[in-house]
Protein backbone atom coordinates (compact mmCIF):
# COMPACT_ATOMS: atom_id res chain seq x y z
CA UNK A 1 0.00 0.00 0.00
CA UNK A 2 1.23 3.45 -0.83
CA UNK A 3 -0.21 6.87 -0.19
CA UNK A 4 -1.08 9.17 2.53
CA UNK A 5 -3.57 7.94 5.12
CA UNK A 6 -5.27 10.99 6.52
CA UNK A 7 -8.34 12.10 4.58
CA UNK A 8 -9.11 10.96 1.05
CA UNK A 9 -11.80 12.84 -0.89
CA UNK A 10 -13.26 10.97 -3.87
CA UNK A 11 -14.51 13.42 -6.48
CA UNK A 12 -12.88 16.74 -7.42
CA UNK A 13 -16.01 18.68 -8.28
CA UNK A 14 -17.62 21.48 -6.30
CA UNK A 15 -18.31 19.39 -3.20
CA UNK A 16 -15.06 17.44 -3.00
CA UNK A 17 -12.79 20.38 -3.75
CA UNK A 18 -14.56 22.61 -1.21
CA UNK A 19 -14.31 19.83 1.35
CA UNK A 20 -10.58 19.40 0.78
CA UNK A 21 -9.92 23.12 1.20
CA UNK A 22 -12.30 23.41 4.17
CA UNK A 23 -10.40 20.69 6.05
CA UNK A 24 -7.47 23.08 6.19
CA UNK A 25 -9.64 26.05 7.09
CA UNK A 26 -10.91 23.94 10.00
CA UNK A 27 -7.33 23.40 11.14
CA UNK A 28 -6.77 19.81 10.02
CA UNK A 29 -3.03 19.24 9.59
CA UNK A 30 -2.89 15.66 8.24
CA UNK A 31 -2.59 14.52 4.64
CA UNK A 32 -5.45 15.34 2.26
CA UNK A 33 -5.79 13.64 -1.13
CA UNK A 34 -8.36 14.80 -3.68
CA UNK A 35 -9.09 12.11 -6.28
CA UNK A 36 -10.91 12.98 -9.51
CA UNK A 37 -11.70 11.03 -12.64
CA UNK A 38 -11.64 14.11 -14.87
CA UNK A 39 -8.34 15.50 -16.12
CA UNK A 40 -7.26 19.03 -15.33
CA UNK A 41 -7.90 21.51 -12.56
CA UNK A 42 -11.22 21.48 -10.63
CA UNK A 43 -13.77 23.80 -12.25
CA UNK A 44 -17.26 25.18 -11.73
CA UNK A 45 -20.08 23.48 -13.63
CA UNK A 46 -22.73 26.26 -13.76
CA UNK A 47 -21.04 28.22 -16.60
CA UNK A 48 -20.97 25.10 -18.82
CA UNK A 49 -24.52 25.71 -20.08
CA UNK A 50 -24.01 29.47 -20.41
CA UNK A 51 -20.72 31.29 -21.00
CA UNK A 52 -18.65 28.17 -21.74
CA UNK A 53 -21.25 26.84 -24.18
CA UNK A 54 -21.51 30.27 -25.79
CA UNK A 55 -17.74 30.23 -26.28
CA UNK A 56 -17.29 33.43 -24.31
CA UNK A 57 -15.40 31.85 -21.41
CA UNK A 58 -13.12 28.95 -20.61
CA UNK A 59 -13.48 26.86 -17.49
CA UNK A 60 -13.91 28.81 -14.24
CA UNK A 61 -11.48 27.31 -11.73
CA UNK A 62 -12.92 26.35 -8.34
CA UNK A 63 -9.79 27.66 -6.71
CA UNK A 64 -6.34 28.59 -7.90
CA UNK A 65 -3.64 25.95 -8.29
CA UNK A 66 -1.68 27.94 -5.69
CA UNK A 67 -4.54 27.62 -3.21
CA UNK A 68 -4.55 23.85 -3.58
CA UNK A 69 -0.78 23.78 -3.22
CA UNK A 70 -0.77 26.13 -0.24
CA UNK A 71 -3.42 23.99 1.43
CA UNK A 72 -1.22 20.95 0.86
CA UNK A 73 -3.98 19.12 -0.98
CA UNK A 74 -2.64 16.37 -3.22
CA UNK A 75 -4.83 16.48 -6.33
CA UNK A 76 -4.80 13.22 -8.26
CA UNK A 77 -6.51 14.18 -11.53
CA UNK A 78 -7.65 11.86 -14.28
CA UNK A 79 -7.51 8.84 -11.99
CA UNK A 80 -10.92 7.42 -11.18
CA UNK A 81 -11.40 5.46 -7.99
CA UNK A 82 -12.25 1.85 -8.82
CA UNK A 83 -12.63 0.07 -5.48
CA UNK A 84 -13.21 0.96 -1.85
CA UNK A 85 -12.40 -1.49 0.95
CA UNK A 86 -14.04 -0.10 4.05
CA UNK A 87 -12.63 -2.81 6.33
CA UNK A 88 -9.03 -2.29 5.22
CA UNK A 89 -9.56 1.49 4.85
CA UNK A 90 -8.11 1.55 1.35
CA UNK A 91 -9.13 3.11 -1.97
CA UNK A 92 -7.88 1.64 -5.24
CA UNK A 93 -7.42 3.91 -8.27
CA UNK A 94 -7.68 3.10 -11.98
CA UNK A 95 -3.91 3.34 -12.36
CA UNK A 96 -3.43 0.63 -9.72
CA UNK A 97 -2.42 2.89 -6.87
CA UNK A 98 -3.87 2.07 -3.46
CA UNK A 99 -4.44 4.89 -0.98
CA UNK A 100 -4.89 4.24 2.72
CA UNK A 101 -7.21 6.55 4.65
CA UNK A 102 -8.29 7.33 8.17
CA UNK A 103 -11.49 9.01 6.92
CA UNK A 104 -12.91 9.11 3.41
CA UNK A 105 -15.46 11.40 1.78
CA UNK A 106 -17.46 10.25 -1.23
CA UNK A 107 -18.19 13.34 -3.31
CA UNK A 108 -18.71 11.45 -6.54
CA UNK A 109 -21.56 13.65 -7.79
CA UNK A 110 -23.94 12.56 -10.50
CA UNK A 111 -23.79 11.75 -14.18
CA UNK A 112 -26.17 12.86 -16.87
CA UNK A 113 -28.88 10.47 -17.98
CA UNK A 114 -28.16 9.67 -21.60
CA UNK A 115 -30.06 8.99 -24.79
CA UNK A 116 -28.15 7.16 -27.52
CA UNK A 117 -27.36 9.65 -30.27
CA UNK A 118 -27.80 12.75 -28.09
CA UNK A 119 -25.30 15.11 -26.55
CA UNK A 120 -25.41 15.60 -22.79
CA UNK A 121 -23.99 18.42 -20.70
CA UNK A 122 -22.24 17.59 -17.49
CA UNK A 123 -18.49 18.07 -17.99
CA UNK A 124 -16.33 20.70 -19.63
CA UNK A 125 -15.57 18.17 -22.39
CA UNK A 126 -19.33 17.79 -22.98
CA UNK A 127 -19.66 21.57 -23.33
CA UNK A 128 -16.78 21.80 -25.79
CA UNK A 129 -18.20 18.96 -27.90
CA UNK A 130 -21.67 20.52 -27.98
CA UNK A 131 -20.39 24.03 -28.65
CA UNK A 132 -18.89 22.91 -31.95
CA UNK A 133 -22.37 21.87 -33.11
CA UNK A 134 -24.22 25.04 -32.12
CA UNK A 135 -23.50 26.98 -35.29
CA UNK A 136 -25.85 29.67 -36.52
CA UNK A 137 -28.79 28.15 -38.37
CA UNK A 138 -28.38 24.70 -36.86
CA UNK A 139 -31.62 22.97 -35.90
CA UNK A 140 -31.22 21.96 -32.27
CA UNK A 141 -33.61 19.50 -30.61
CA UNK A 142 -33.55 19.39 -26.85
CA UNK A 143 -35.12 16.49 -25.02
CA UNK A 144 -36.18 17.65 -21.56
CA UNK A 145 -37.45 21.03 -20.40
CA UNK A 146 -35.58 21.19 -17.11
CA UNK A 147 -32.80 23.58 -16.14
CA UNK A 148 -30.08 22.14 -18.34
CA UNK A 149 -32.43 21.84 -21.32
CA UNK A 150 -33.74 25.39 -21.03
CA UNK A 151 -30.35 26.97 -20.34
CA UNK A 152 -28.91 25.19 -23.37
CA UNK A 153 -31.98 26.31 -25.38
CA UNK A 154 -31.38 29.94 -24.42
CA UNK A 155 -27.67 29.77 -25.23
CA UNK A 156 -28.31 28.00 -28.55
CA UNK A 157 -30.98 30.54 -29.56
CA UNK A 158 -28.57 33.38 -28.79
CA UNK A 159 -26.04 31.67 -31.08
CA UNK A 160 -28.59 31.74 -33.92
CA UNK A 161 -29.79 28.15 -33.72
CA UNK A 162 -33.41 27.12 -34.37
CA UNK A 163 -34.38 25.42 -31.11
CA UNK A 164 -37.16 22.95 -30.28
CA UNK A 165 -37.59 21.65 -26.71
CA UNK A 166 -39.60 18.47 -26.19
CA UNK A 167 -40.86 17.91 -22.65
CA UNK A 168 -42.98 14.95 -21.58
CA UNK A 169 -44.56 16.73 -18.58
CA UNK A 170 -47.38 19.27 -18.99
CA UNK A 171 -45.04 22.19 -18.25
CA UNK A 172 -41.31 22.95 -18.11
CA UNK A 173 -39.26 22.74 -14.90
CA UNK A 174 -42.14 20.91 -13.26
CA UNK A 175 -40.10 19.20 -10.60
CA UNK A 176 -38.66 22.21 -8.88
CA UNK A 177 -40.23 25.51 -9.92
CA UNK A 178 -43.73 26.87 -9.13
CA UNK A 179 -46.00 26.95 -12.16
CA UNK A 180 -46.33 30.72 -12.29
CA UNK A 181 -42.58 31.29 -12.28
CA UNK A 182 -42.02 28.55 -14.87
CA UNK A 183 -44.69 30.15 -17.08
CA UNK A 184 -42.78 33.46 -17.05
CA UNK A 185 -39.65 31.67 -18.19
CA UNK A 186 -41.56 29.75 -20.87
CA UNK A 187 -43.02 32.97 -22.25
CA UNK A 188 -39.53 34.43 -22.52
CA UNK A 189 -38.34 31.35 -24.43
CA UNK A 190 -41.28 31.69 -26.83
CA UNK A 191 -40.41 35.35 -27.36
CA UNK A 192 -36.89 34.24 -28.31
CA UNK A 193 -38.37 31.96 -30.95
CA UNK A 194 -37.85 28.71 -29.05
CA UNK A 195 -40.54 26.10 -29.65
CA UNK A 196 -41.30 24.40 -26.34
CA UNK A 197 -43.60 21.40 -26.77
CA UNK A 198 -44.87 20.19 -23.41
CA UNK A 199 -46.86 17.02 -22.85
CA UNK A 200 -44.89 15.49 -25.70
CA UNK A 201 -43.11 12.18 -25.32
CA UNK A 202 -40.11 11.12 -27.37
CA UNK A 203 -40.50 7.71 -29.01
CA UNK A 204 -36.95 7.45 -30.32
CA UNK A 205 -34.07 9.29 -31.95
CA UNK A 206 -33.25 8.58 -35.57
CA UNK A 207 -30.44 10.14 -37.56
CA UNK A 208 -31.49 13.73 -38.23
CA UNK A 209 -34.78 13.57 -36.38
CA UNK A 210 -36.62 13.09 -33.12
CA UNK A 211 -39.63 10.81 -33.46
CA UNK A 212 -42.36 11.84 -31.03
CA UNK A 213 -44.77 9.60 -29.15
CA UNK A 214 -47.70 10.90 -31.22
CA UNK A 215 -45.91 9.97 -34.43
CA UNK A 216 -44.78 13.52 -35.19
CA UNK A 217 -41.22 14.25 -36.18
CA UNK A 218 -38.82 17.10 -35.37
CA UNK A 219 -36.06 17.48 -37.96
CA UNK A 220 -32.77 18.29 -36.24
CA UNK A 221 -29.06 18.69 -36.85
CA UNK A 222 -28.13 18.05 -33.24
CA UNK A 223 -29.93 16.57 -30.24
CA UNK A 224 -29.23 17.36 -26.60
CA UNK A 225 -30.62 15.27 -23.76
CA UNK A 226 -31.39 17.21 -20.60
CA UNK A 227 -33.30 14.49 -18.81
CA UNK A 228 -31.84 14.61 -15.34
CA UNK A 229 -28.96 12.95 -13.63
CA UNK A 230 -28.17 9.75 -11.81
CA UNK A 231 -26.14 9.77 -8.59
CA UNK A 232 -22.72 8.16 -8.91
CA UNK A 233 -23.05 5.38 -6.36
CA UNK A 234 -21.28 2.44 -8.01
CA UNK A 235 -18.16 2.71 -5.82
CA UNK A 236 -20.24 2.84 -2.63
CA UNK A 237 -22.57 0.08 -3.71
CA UNK A 238 -19.71 -2.27 -4.58
CA UNK A 239 -18.23 -1.55 -1.16
CA UNK A 240 -21.45 -2.69 0.52
CA UNK A 241 -22.50 0.82 1.61
CA UNK A 242 -26.25 1.49 1.81
CA UNK A 243 -27.56 3.15 -1.37
CA UNK A 244 -31.12 4.22 -2.14
CA UNK A 245 -31.47 7.02 -4.71
CA UNK A 246 -28.01 8.16 -3.65
CA UNK A 247 -25.62 7.08 -0.93
CA UNK A 248 -27.71 6.99 2.25
CA UNK A 249 -26.26 9.29 4.93
CA UNK A 250 -27.38 10.66 8.28
CA UNK A 251 -27.75 14.36 9.03
CA UNK A 252 -23.98 14.74 9.38
CA UNK A 253 -23.21 12.85 6.15
CA UNK A 254 -22.09 9.55 7.75
CA UNK A 255 -22.70 6.52 5.53
CA UNK A 256 -23.42 3.00 6.74
CA UNK A 257 -19.67 2.26 6.69
CA UNK A 258 -17.32 3.39 9.46
CA UNK A 259 -15.16 6.42 8.66
CA UNK A 260 -16.82 6.92 5.26
CA UNK A 261 -18.94 10.02 4.63
CA UNK A 262 -20.78 11.11 1.49
CA UNK A 263 -21.96 14.58 0.45
CA UNK A 264 -23.14 16.56 -2.55
CA UNK A 265 -25.16 15.29 -5.51
CA UNK A 266 -24.31 11.64 -4.76
CA UNK A 267 -25.97 11.50 -1.34
CA UNK A 268 -29.49 11.34 0.07
CA UNK A 269 -29.80 13.02 3.47
CA UNK A 270 -32.60 13.78 5.97
CA UNK A 271 -33.55 17.47 6.13
CA UNK A 272 -34.60 18.74 9.57
CA UNK A 273 -36.59 21.68 8.15
CA UNK A 274 -38.85 19.28 6.26
CA UNK A 275 -39.62 16.61 8.88
CA UNK A 276 -36.39 14.77 8.07
CA UNK A 277 -37.63 14.01 4.58
CA UNK A 278 -34.79 12.51 2.52
CA UNK A 279 -33.48 14.87 -0.15
CA UNK A 280 -30.95 14.43 -2.89
CA UNK A 281 -30.03 17.86 -4.20
CA UNK A 282 -28.44 18.61 -7.55
CA UNK A 283 -27.33 22.12 -6.86
CA UNK A 284 -24.11 24.07 -6.98
CA UNK A 285 -24.62 25.77 -3.66
CA UNK A 286 -25.70 22.61 -1.86
CA UNK A 287 -22.59 20.84 -3.16
CA UNK A 288 -20.42 23.67 -1.87
CA UNK A 289 -22.11 23.97 1.52
CA UNK A 290 -22.26 20.22 2.02
CA UNK A 291 -18.56 19.96 1.19
CA UNK A 292 -17.72 22.47 3.92
CA UNK A 293 -20.11 20.81 6.37
CA UNK A 294 -18.73 17.35 5.56
CA UNK A 295 -15.20 18.64 6.23
CA UNK A 296 -16.24 19.53 9.77
CA UNK A 297 -17.98 16.17 10.11
CA UNK A 298 -14.81 14.38 8.93
CA UNK A 299 -13.10 16.04 11.89
CA UNK A 300 -15.74 14.82 14.34
CA UNK A 301 -18.52 17.46 14.32
CA UNK A 302 -21.96 15.92 14.59
CA UNK A 303 -24.41 18.78 14.02
CA UNK A 304 -26.90 18.03 11.24
CA UNK A 305 -26.81 19.87 7.92
CA UNK A 306 -29.86 22.12 7.80
CA UNK A 307 -29.17 24.67 5.04
CA UNK A 308 -32.24 25.68 3.03
CA UNK A 309 -32.11 24.16 -0.47
CA UNK A 310 -31.43 26.91 -3.02
CA UNK A 311 -30.63 27.15 -6.69
CA UNK A 312 -30.74 29.54 -9.58
CA UNK A 313 -31.06 29.31 -13.34
CA UNK A 314 -30.14 31.88 -15.99
CA UNK A 315 -32.31 31.80 -19.12
CA UNK A 316 -31.93 34.66 -21.62
CA UNK A 317 -31.85 37.91 -19.63
CA UNK A 318 -33.88 36.36 -16.82
CA UNK A 319 -32.66 34.77 -13.65
CA UNK A 320 -34.91 32.61 -11.54
CA UNK A 321 -34.08 31.56 -8.02
CA UNK A 322 -35.80 29.06 -5.74
CA UNK A 323 -35.22 28.50 -2.02
CA UNK A 324 -36.87 25.77 0.03
CA UNK A 325 -39.13 23.08 -1.37
CA UNK A 326 -42.06 24.39 -3.45
CA UNK A 327 -43.61 20.93 -3.33
CA UNK A 328 -43.99 21.21 0.45
CA UNK A 329 -46.33 24.21 0.14
CA UNK A 330 -50.09 23.95 0.62
CA UNK A 331 -50.84 27.67 0.12
CA UNK A 332 -49.26 30.18 -2.21
CA UNK A 333 -48.86 33.94 -2.24
CA UNK A 334 -47.66 36.00 -5.21
CA UNK A 335 -45.96 39.39 -5.10
CA UNK A 336 -45.65 41.29 -8.38
CA UNK A 337 -43.17 44.13 -8.09
CA UNK A 338 -43.40 47.42 -9.96
CA UNK A 339 -40.24 46.50 -11.93
CA UNK A 340 -42.05 43.44 -13.33
CA UNK A 341 -40.16 40.93 -11.21
CA UNK A 342 -42.34 38.33 -9.54
CA UNK A 343 -42.02 36.45 -6.30
CA UNK A 344 -43.89 33.35 -5.20
CA UNK A 345 -44.12 32.32 -1.57
CA UNK A 346 -45.19 28.81 -0.50
CA UNK A 347 -46.59 28.24 2.97
CA UNK A 348 -47.61 25.17 4.91
CA UNK A 349 -49.79 25.63 8.00
CA UNK A 350 -48.74 29.27 8.04
CA UNK A 351 -45.02 28.54 7.93
CA UNK A 352 -42.96 29.71 4.97
CA UNK A 353 -41.47 26.62 3.29
CA UNK A 354 -40.45 27.90 -0.15
CA UNK A 355 -39.84 31.07 -2.11
CA UNK A 356 -39.20 31.53 -5.81
CA UNK A 357 -38.62 34.56 -7.97
CA UNK A 358 -37.96 35.56 -11.54
CA UNK A 359 -36.73 38.85 -12.94
CA UNK A 360 -34.14 40.46 -15.15
CA UNK A 361 -30.58 39.90 -13.97
CA UNK A 362 -30.29 39.65 -10.23
CA UNK A 363 -33.51 41.60 -9.57
CA UNK A 364 -35.06 38.97 -7.29
CA UNK A 365 -31.90 37.90 -5.49
CA UNK A 366 -32.28 40.02 -2.38
CA UNK A 367 -35.93 39.12 -1.83
CA UNK A 368 -35.33 35.40 -2.40
CA UNK A 369 -32.41 35.53 0.03
CA UNK A 370 -34.59 37.16 2.68
CA UNK A 371 -37.21 34.48 2.01
CA UNK A 372 -34.55 31.84 2.48
CA UNK A 373 -33.58 33.31 5.86
CA UNK A 374 -37.24 33.32 6.87
CA UNK A 375 -37.57 29.66 5.88
CA UNK A 376 -34.50 28.77 7.95
CA UNK A 377 -36.09 30.49 10.96
CA UNK A 378 -39.34 28.58 10.45
CA UNK A 379 -41.04 31.96 10.24
CA UNK A 380 -44.78 32.36 9.68
CA UNK A 381 -44.95 35.76 7.95
CA UNK A 382 -48.26 37.51 7.32
CA UNK A 383 -49.42 36.46 3.82
CA UNK A 384 -50.83 39.95 3.20
CA UNK A 385 -47.38 41.44 3.84
CA UNK A 386 -45.78 38.91 1.49
CA UNK A 387 -48.26 39.79 -1.28
CA UNK A 388 -47.86 43.58 -1.02
CA UNK A 389 -44.89 44.91 -2.99
CA UNK A 390 -45.03 48.11 -0.93
CA UNK A 391 -44.13 46.17 2.23
CA UNK A 392 -40.37 45.69 2.64
CA UNK A 393 -39.44 42.07 3.33
CA UNK A 394 -36.29 42.65 5.34
CA UNK A 395 -38.07 43.89 8.50
CA UNK A 396 -39.89 40.52 8.60
CA UNK A 397 -36.54 39.06 9.66
CA UNK A 398 -36.77 41.07 12.87
CA UNK A 399 -40.03 39.41 13.91
CA UNK A 400 -39.11 36.77 16.52
CA UNK A 401 -39.24 33.19 15.24
CA UNK A 402 -42.09 31.04 16.49
CA UNK A 403 -41.20 28.76 19.36
CA UNK A 404 -40.32 25.20 18.32
Amino acid at each position, binding site marked *: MTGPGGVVVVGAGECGT*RAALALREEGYAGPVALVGGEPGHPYERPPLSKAVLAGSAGPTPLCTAEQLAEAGVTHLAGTAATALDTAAHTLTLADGRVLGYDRLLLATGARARTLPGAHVLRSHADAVALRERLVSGARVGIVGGGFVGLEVAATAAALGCAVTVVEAAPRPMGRAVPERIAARAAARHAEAGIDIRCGTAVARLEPGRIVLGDGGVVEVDVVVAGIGSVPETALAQAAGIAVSDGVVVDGAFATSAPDVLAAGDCCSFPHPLYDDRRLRLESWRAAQEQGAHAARALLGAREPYAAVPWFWSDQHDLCLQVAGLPGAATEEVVRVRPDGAELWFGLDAGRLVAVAGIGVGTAVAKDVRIGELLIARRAAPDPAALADPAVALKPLLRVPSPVG
Partner: protein
Amino acid sequence: MPQWIAACETDDVDPEDVVPFEHAGNSYAVYRSPDDAFFATDGYCTHERELLCDGLVMGGTIECPKHNGRFDYTSGKALGAPVLVDVRTYPTKVEDGTVYIEVP
Protein backbone atom coordinates in the same frame (compact mmCIF):
# COMPACT_ATOMS: atom_id res chain seq x y z
CA MET B 1 -5.17 62.23 -8.82
CA PRO B 2 -7.63 60.91 -6.25
CA GLN B 3 -10.75 63.01 -6.05
CA TRP B 4 -13.84 63.15 -3.86
CA ILE B 5 -17.04 62.51 -5.80
CA ALA B 6 -20.58 63.03 -4.50
CA ALA B 7 -22.16 59.57 -4.67
CA CYS B 8 -25.59 60.05 -3.10
CA GLU B 9 -27.52 61.68 -0.30
CA THR B 10 -27.43 59.97 3.08
CA ASP B 11 -31.20 59.49 2.85
CA ASP B 12 -30.81 57.57 -0.40
CA VAL B 13 -29.46 54.56 1.53
CA ASP B 14 -31.39 52.79 4.25
CA PRO B 15 -29.42 51.61 7.27
CA GLU B 16 -28.02 48.12 6.61
CA ASP B 17 -28.44 48.52 2.87
CA VAL B 18 -26.56 49.38 -0.32
CA VAL B 19 -27.10 51.48 -3.43
CA PRO B 20 -25.28 51.53 -6.76
CA PHE B 21 -23.20 54.48 -7.97
CA GLU B 22 -21.63 55.00 -11.39
CA HIS B 23 -18.78 57.35 -12.14
CA ALA B 24 -16.58 57.67 -15.21
CA GLY B 25 -17.67 54.27 -16.50
CA ASN B 26 -16.98 52.52 -13.22
CA SER B 27 -19.51 50.90 -10.89
CA TYR B 28 -19.39 51.36 -7.15
CA ALA B 29 -21.54 50.17 -4.25
CA VAL B 30 -22.23 52.57 -1.37
CA TYR B 31 -23.21 51.03 1.97
CA ARG B 32 -24.82 52.35 5.11
CA SER B 33 -24.06 50.19 8.13
CA PRO B 34 -26.64 49.47 10.88
CA ASP B 35 -24.93 52.19 12.99
CA ASP B 36 -25.10 54.76 10.16
CA ALA B 37 -21.52 54.73 8.94
CA PHE B 38 -20.93 54.87 5.17
CA PHE B 39 -18.61 52.64 3.12
CA ALA B 40 -17.89 52.10 -0.56
CA THR B 41 -16.58 49.20 -2.64
CA ASP B 42 -16.26 48.28 -6.28
CA GLY B 43 -19.68 47.62 -7.74
CA TYR B 44 -18.95 44.11 -8.96
CA CYS B 45 -18.25 40.89 -7.13
CA THR B 46 -14.72 39.53 -7.60
CA HIS B 47 -16.03 36.02 -8.36
CA GLU B 48 -18.16 36.56 -11.45
CA ARG B 49 -19.34 39.86 -12.76
CA GLU B 50 -22.43 40.30 -10.61
CA LEU B 51 -23.56 43.67 -9.22
CA LEU B 52 -23.17 43.69 -5.46
CA CYS B 53 -25.85 46.38 -5.06
CA ASP B 54 -28.51 43.71 -5.78
CA GLY B 55 -27.25 41.64 -2.85
CA LEU B 56 -28.33 41.54 0.77
CA VAL B 57 -26.54 43.57 3.46
CA MET B 58 -26.52 41.86 6.85
CA GLY B 59 -24.64 43.72 9.57
CA GLY B 60 -21.20 44.49 8.16
CA THR B 61 -21.34 42.07 5.24
CA ILE B 62 -22.60 42.22 1.68
CA GLU B 63 -23.58 39.02 -0.06
CA CYS B 64 -23.29 38.58 -3.83
CA PRO B 65 -26.80 38.27 -5.28
CA LYS B 66 -25.97 35.30 -7.47
CA HIS B 67 -23.56 32.99 -5.71
CA ASN B 68 -23.68 34.20 -2.12
CA GLY B 69 -20.03 35.08 -1.88
CA ARG B 70 -19.67 37.39 1.13
CA PHE B 71 -17.45 40.37 1.76
CA ASP B 72 -16.86 42.54 4.80
CA TYR B 73 -17.77 45.80 3.09
CA THR B 74 -15.93 47.85 5.72
CA SER B 75 -12.58 46.26 4.78
CA GLY B 76 -13.31 44.55 1.44
CA LYS B 77 -12.18 41.21 2.84
CA ALA B 78 -13.56 38.12 1.05
CA LEU B 79 -15.21 35.89 3.64
CA GLY B 80 -14.87 32.51 1.96
CA ALA B 81 -15.88 30.38 -1.02
CA PRO B 82 -16.77 31.03 -3.74
CA VAL B 83 -15.08 34.43 -3.51
CA LEU B 84 -11.32 34.12 -3.55
CA VAL B 85 -10.29 37.75 -3.98
CA ASP B 86 -11.04 40.76 -1.74
CA VAL B 87 -13.20 43.53 -3.17
CA ARG B 88 -11.60 46.95 -3.44
CA THR B 89 -12.82 49.61 -0.98
CA TYR B 90 -12.81 53.40 -1.25
CA PRO B 91 -12.70 56.07 1.46
CA THR B 92 -15.98 57.86 2.18
CA LYS B 93 -17.00 61.03 3.97
CA VAL B 94 -20.32 62.74 4.71
CA GLU B 95 -20.77 66.50 4.38
CA ASP B 96 -24.11 68.30 4.65
CA GLY B 97 -26.09 65.13 4.06
CA THR B 98 -24.09 64.10 0.98
CA VAL B 99 -21.96 60.95 0.83
CA TYR B 100 -18.66 61.37 -1.02
CA ILE B 101 -16.32 58.63 -2.10
CA GLU B 102 -12.68 59.09 -2.98
CA VAL B 103 -11.87 57.52 -6.34
CA PRO B 104 -8.42 57.26 -7.86
